[in-house]
Each structure stands twice: as C-alpha cells, then as structure tokens.
C-alpha cells in the first residue's frame, strides 16, 4: 500500500520571515515585560534592611528564575492558541498526495550495552510496519553497537541474526560493532556517516528505546524530499510503555501537557528548531559537510568530546544554512522514560554536564541567535535549579539572620523616629501566587485542550483532573529533591567531576537500600532546614513546608514511585490513549521481544559460543567491525590459558576484558566451539 493512499497531506502556505520575527517579538517581548514588571515589584517588596549588594543579588536571581517561568508560560499560551486554531504546522512544504519516495533512508539505531532482545524487537516491529508500504523498501536499518560489555555484544549479534530471518523482504538490517566507542553516540553516528553514509540521502536517527511507525518514517522522508533546504526534521517523541508510577506520571504529563509545550516551541522556533538526538531525520550530506564535531581543549567535564551533541549539531547545521524543523503533528514517534527518580537523575547528570559544556558554544562566533537561545534554555534547565536553591537559601538566611541580629531601630542617638525595616509580606505572597499560576496554567491548558477535543481515551474528564491533581502533588514534592540533585550536579561539574557514560536502566525499580544510599542527604537537608526554620524563622515554616516535606520524603517518594502502581485497568489514573488502544507497533514490539528473549534466555556468552552458528556469525561480522583494540600480551596469554582449561571442563572465570578479547580471537573461538561439542 503506498503511503499516499492513507495519508491526508496537503500543501499549506509557507511562513514569511516577517511573521516568524513578529512571533518571536511577541513571545520574548511578553516574557521580558512580565519578568521586568515582576522584578520591579519584587524590588519594592524586598526587605529594606538588607545591603545593596544583597538587594541586587536577590533581584538578579529573581529575574532569572521568574524569566524562566515566564518563557515557559508564554510559550505554552501561544502553543495552546496554535493548537486550537490549526491542526497542521505551517511553514514547511508538505508533499503532494501522490508524491513518490525514491530517496534512500538509513535508520540508525545506536546501542550502548542495551537489552539486545528489546532493541531488536523494536527494530523488527518498525521494519514490519514499514514493510506494509511500498515505500518501505527505500529504508535500511543499521544497528550501530558501541557496547563494551562482551556478553551484550554477542547477544546483539545473535539477535541480529534471528531478527534478520524474520525481516520483511526488501528491507535490509545491518549490524556493526565499534571496537572503540570514541566520542560516544556522536562518534558512533559519525563512524556510520564516514563509512556508509554516502549511500543514503537521509538518516533517521533513533535511540535504543525509540519506536516510530512506518507511516511517519515515510512521511518524514517525503517531507525532506519536498523541502530541499531542510537539514533536520524532529518528530517529538511521546513516552510509552511506562509501568512504574514515576514513568506513568511522566508519560501522562508528556501526553497531556507536552503537546502544548511542543506547539509553543514550534510556533516561535519555526525553521530554527532544535534536534534532540533521536527520532529525527537528517540530510546525510548536510550533516557530513557541517556537523563534524571538534574536540574541546582541556579535560572533562568542560573539555574533551562534546557530550550533548544534538544541540550542537542542530546549531552547526543551521549555521551552514540548512533549516531545522520540529513538527508536533508527526505522530507515532515514541520513546521510553526512565522508570525511577534515580534513573531520571542519573540521566540528568549526563545531560547537565553536556548542557553546561554548551556555555563555550553559546558564546562562540557565527552561531545563529535562535541556536544561542536553545543553548541558553538547555543550560538554564539545570542552572535554574541552583538559582532557585540560592534564592530559597538567601530568603531563609535573611529571616534567620534577623532572628540573631534584630534590626536596629535607632541607629543614631536622639533620633526622633525609628527606622522600621519594611517587608511587604502580602506583595511577596502575591508574587509567589503569580509564579504558581504561571507554572500550573499551561498544565491546565493541556487538560482543557484534551477535554475540548472530546478525547475519551484518557478515562474521562474526572480521571484527567485526578491525574492532573496527583501529578502536581507529586511534582511539587519531588521538585525540591530534583532541585537538590541538579544543584549538586552543577557543583560537581564545576569542580571538575566527569559523569562518565552509564547505561540507562529502562526497567527495574529502586530498592530501599539504594533509595537510602542516594537520598539520605536530601532527607537530612530537609530535616535540618525544617528544624532551623521552625526555631529561627517560624513565620516561614508553613510556607517552606512543601519544599522541606518533599526533601524529608525523598526516600519513600523515590522508592515507591519506581514501583508498578495500581492494577492494570483501562480506567486507572494517568491513562493515555496508547494504553487503552495499544498501537500495533507497540504490540508487535512486545510480541517480538518475548520471542527473541527466548533465544538468549539464561545463556551467557560462553554458552552462546558453544553454538557453532553463532560463532560463525560472530567471525563473519568481525570483518565489518574494524581492527581489534590493543589488549596487551599478558591478557592474551591469560585468556588462551583459561580457554584451554575451560574447554577441558574447567570453571569459567574470565573477566569482562578477557571475554572481550576472546571475542576478537577467531582461532581461539573456533577451537573453543569445537572442543565444547
């Protein structure tokens, strides 16, 4: 079935530069005006007995944090307005209904020590979906493995072989393992581009947990064909397959509020949009010509390879004159969410380091102003936590200070009137309420939008509002915990600590033991702050309670929210349409996972290597992977000795490095496979 037959695509008038400029003036103008007005008010409401330095310091902190909220608020308001008015994003040229697709697209699936069966199940599901369309044959899948764990490396190859047997005719599935994972994901993609990229016009970059329906992939390729000056089209990914309370909460908020936020971003960013590193299609030649990433001088965290490469690649491709779009209308683009607060924080640690590394690109030459805004937004998404933390600390600090050093009402002798320190409590409360409204209002718009569309697959309006309430309660309690985490990350990064590259946990929950180990200090900060405030700044106690309570409850919040929550019912809270009517591609990926998992279930590397078929596949693929890394003669001798013992029935005691070497030694592998028979 050609895609055009099932797809209602039509051309829309292209956006003029003037209109986009006007949109940006409106958004940033309103953001600036609101922030300036609130800052002036805050300046008036601040206590009068603080030093001028402290006054300005608090004012700058307030300006930055309030500005952040204000940008989010206005962006969401415009996004809501756009969604209500239009169903399709204007500006990009949509392909004609009967447009053919002749260009080849490589679908890149970078993988780093991921669950091999899960990755390949998703790939199979996507390929099957693509196979339904005649245009599907223009696509080919590349599993680009950077896995350092030899067990996973071999599993990936076995899964590749098993998946290839079931792959639809005409769609290729290639596997390559990189011996050295230089420059991590960006290096992985670059390796593809320099070796095979020239055979493809486009590449659709995915993450190991990404899923995109075939129709959308074809639509993305056709959009690239219709817009020859476009370098990147980003399809906003939607969270699916969430099981834990934490992940389902994010899944719900992404589905209900995310749409408004995306539409808001698309509204003002237009062709200067960002790239999020996955679920995006890229023009290969444009990428090769303009996105070769430099290695920064100096050591990590600020020097070395660029960690958050996606923003930089978007900025570079834009700098070269190519357009970058984010199209909220592209549906059927999915990803998964970390199952727990700790996994979320672990991912945040890497992103935080990557985003702070962008400071030097932010102030680099020839970067497009909107790209600079993207960098600023990225940096501020972590820095704002530290700023909020400082603002709270100073606010409490001033009240505690006053407890120990009461104000001097008469600073000179024989003074007629006392110098009353003035602090406008009600004004400050009004500003606080305004901030809360600006934070919650976009979420309310999201709920109203869903209700307005009459979408009943969320469990009805009652369930939606319940979800809204619980989500806000949890967000309010967990926000201080994340604030402390992110503030700690910034301090760590500024003091030169590198995050490294950990594999993401995508399934397991948090144990109490781990919860206590990782959150004890936040609980301690919460208890300490509560005691301090109760004794020395009592007037603030109840105002600060939502913050201190969140910190005190960090351990149970983190552990309990990582658990699968509620019965599997279609009427439970946080229900999204994809749970009520699970899309085919999700069902198919789960079905393939069950089947593929069986092949490698309970089999370690050495057990798999007893199978001569898998040994043959592995050796066959070695030729593609590239030269073997240097292991050193001692390790090689050790492995040879251990394998000879193993073949004679000895116990397995190979380290991961030794196993890695074994996978490179063809003769040793062949001998092992034969002797184990």
């Amino acid at each position, binding site marked *: 079935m050609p895609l055009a037959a099932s797809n209602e695509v039509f051309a829309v008038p292209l956006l003029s530069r003037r209109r986009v400029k006007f949109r940006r003036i409106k958004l940033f103008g309103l953001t600036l005006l609101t922030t300036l007005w609130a800052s002036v008010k805050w300046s008036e409401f601040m206590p009068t007995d603080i030093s001028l330095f402290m006054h300005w310091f608090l004012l700058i902190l307030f300006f930055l944090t309030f500005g952040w909220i204000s940008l989010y608020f206005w962006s969401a308001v415009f996004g809501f307005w756009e969604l209500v008015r239009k169903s399709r994003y204007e500006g990009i040229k949509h392909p004609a209904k009967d447009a053919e697709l002749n260009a080849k697209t490589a679908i890149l699936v970078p993988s780093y020590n991921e669950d091999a069966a899960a990755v390949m199940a998703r790939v199979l599901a996507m390929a099957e979906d693509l196979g339904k369309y005649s245009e599907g044959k223009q696509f080919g899948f590349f599993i680009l493995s950077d896995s350092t764990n030899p067990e996973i490396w071999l599993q990936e190859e076995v899964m590749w072989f098993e998946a290839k047997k079931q792959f639809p005719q005409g769609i290729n599935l290639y596997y390559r393992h990189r011996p050295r994972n230089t420059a991590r994901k960006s290096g992985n993609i670059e390796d593809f581009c320099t070796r095979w990229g020239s055979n493809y016009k486009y590449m659709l970059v995915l993450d190991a947990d990404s899923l995109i329906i075939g129709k959308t992939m074809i639509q993305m390729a056709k959009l690239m064909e219709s817009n020859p000056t476009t370098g990147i089209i980003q399809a906003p990914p939607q969270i699916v397959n969430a099981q834990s309370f934490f992940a389902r909460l994010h899944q719900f908020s992404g589905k209900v509020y995310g749409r408004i936020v995306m539409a808001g971003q698309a509204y003002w960013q237009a062709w200067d949009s960002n790239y999020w590193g996955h679920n995006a299609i890229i023009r290969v030649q444009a990428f090769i010509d303009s996105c070769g990433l*430099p290695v920064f001088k100096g050591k990590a965290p600020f020097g070395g390879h660029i960690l958050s490469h996606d923003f930089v690649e978007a900025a*570079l491709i834009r700098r070269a004159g190519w357009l970058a779009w984010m199209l909220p209308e592209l549906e059927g683009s999915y990803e998964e969410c970390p199952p727990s607060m700790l996994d979320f924080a672990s991912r945040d640690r890497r992103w935080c380091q990557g985003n702070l590394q962008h400071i030097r690109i932010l102030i680099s030459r020839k970067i497009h102003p909107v790209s600079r805004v993207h960098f600023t937004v990225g940096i501020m998404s972590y820095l704002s936590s530290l700023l909020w933390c400082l603002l709270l600390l100073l606010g409490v600090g001033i009240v505690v200070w006053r407890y120990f050093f009461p104000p001097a009402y008469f600073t000179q002798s024989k003074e007629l009137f006392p110098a009353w320190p003035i602090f406008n409590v009600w004004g400050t409360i009004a500003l606080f309420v305004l901030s809360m409204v600006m934070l919650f209002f976009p979420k309310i718009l999201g709920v109203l939008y869903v209700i307005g569309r009459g979408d009943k697959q969320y469990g009805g309006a009652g369930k939606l509002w319940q979800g809204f309430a619980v989500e806000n309660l949890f967000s309010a309690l967990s926000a201080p915990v994340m604030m402390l985490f992110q503030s700690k990350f910034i301090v760590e990064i500024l003091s030169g600590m590198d995050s490294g590259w950990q594999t993401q946990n995508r399934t397991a929950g948090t144990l109490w033991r781990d919860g206590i180990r990782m959150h004890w200090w936040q609980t301690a900060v919460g208890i300490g702050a509560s005691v301090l405030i109760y004794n020395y700044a009592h007037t603030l106690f109840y105002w600060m309670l939502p913050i201190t309570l969140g910190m005190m409850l960090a351990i149970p919040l983190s552990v309990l929210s990582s658990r699968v929550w509620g019965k599997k019912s279609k009427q439970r809270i946080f229900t999204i349409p994809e749970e009520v009517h699970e899309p085919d591609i999700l069902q198919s990926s789960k079905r393939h996972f069950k089947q593929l998992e069986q092949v490698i279930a309970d089999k370690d590397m050495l057990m798999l290597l007893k199978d001569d078929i898998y040994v043959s596949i592995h050796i066959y693929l070695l030729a593609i992977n590239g030269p073997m890394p240097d292991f050193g003669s001692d390790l090689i001798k050790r492995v040879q000795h251990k394998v000879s013992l193993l073949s004679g029935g000895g116990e397995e005691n190979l380290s991961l490095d030794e196993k890695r070497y074994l996978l490179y030694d063809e003769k040793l592998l062949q001998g092992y496979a034969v002797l184990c028979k």
Partner: protein
Amino acid sequence: MVALKLYQPEDLIKSYALSWHVDAPATILALSDEATKEIKSLDELLDWLDNYLLSQLKVIKKDKSLSDEQFLALVKVVYLQHELYQDFNIFDIASATEDKLIKLQEAMSEYKFLPEKKVVMPEQKIKVCNPFSLFLQYLKKGFRHAFGRK
C-alpha cells in the same frame, strides 16, 4: 514451495560483497534468465546448487588457496544467505561437519563483505569570543533593525 530467482554465481559473489554497501543488491545484479528456475524443496535446491556450482567452479574460483570443497561450501553459504534468509538457516549446510565449518569460516573471513566508501567529516571550528562584544554586537543589530533604514 520455494520459488527462487537464481543469479549467476560469479555475480553473486560480487554482489554479496557489494550488498553491504547498497540497500538493494538486486538492483546491481544482472539477472540471468537462463538461471531462473523454480525449486520446490530445500533438498532439490541443494542438489541443483551442487551440480550447478560444480559446473561453474572453474569460472568463478579466484582464490586458489581454497579447496574446491571449501569454495563450494562458501558459495553455498553466500548464495543461501543472499536468497533464502527468510526460509532456511544458512548454516544448515555449512555445519554439516565441524571441520568444514571451521574451514568455511576461515574462507569467509578473507572476504571483505563491507567495502567502505570513505568520506571525511570536516571538523567544524567553534571559536569562543568575548561575550561582552557579542552582546554589544546583538544590541547594535537590534537597534539598527528597530530604528535603522530598511
């Protein structure tokens, strides 16, 4: 029933090498009408393949270090991998004896299945500048844009 379109083995070897480098190897293969045949079972295919390949051995064998047996096995694997991925385990034949398999692997490793079309990604320059002068530059641009002549 397995309906197959067969290619000339020599092309097959080349195309196999090339197939890692292009999406649809079929497009670069010259399909031989003479070699097109409908085969109803795996056994029938294997019998036919043996006879066919043996008759072609002198033509297609370029690597002299391989024995006829090794080469035949290799071609069969290559062939089956190419055409029968969907239906048969490619190593069913090759793993008939372990010795043969090991020899086969050695032979396979000599082939470069993934020829590369290398290109270079030029490293982009990112030069940090003085943030203050950058700010002034934008300020100037903004003023010129707002109040300057069109």
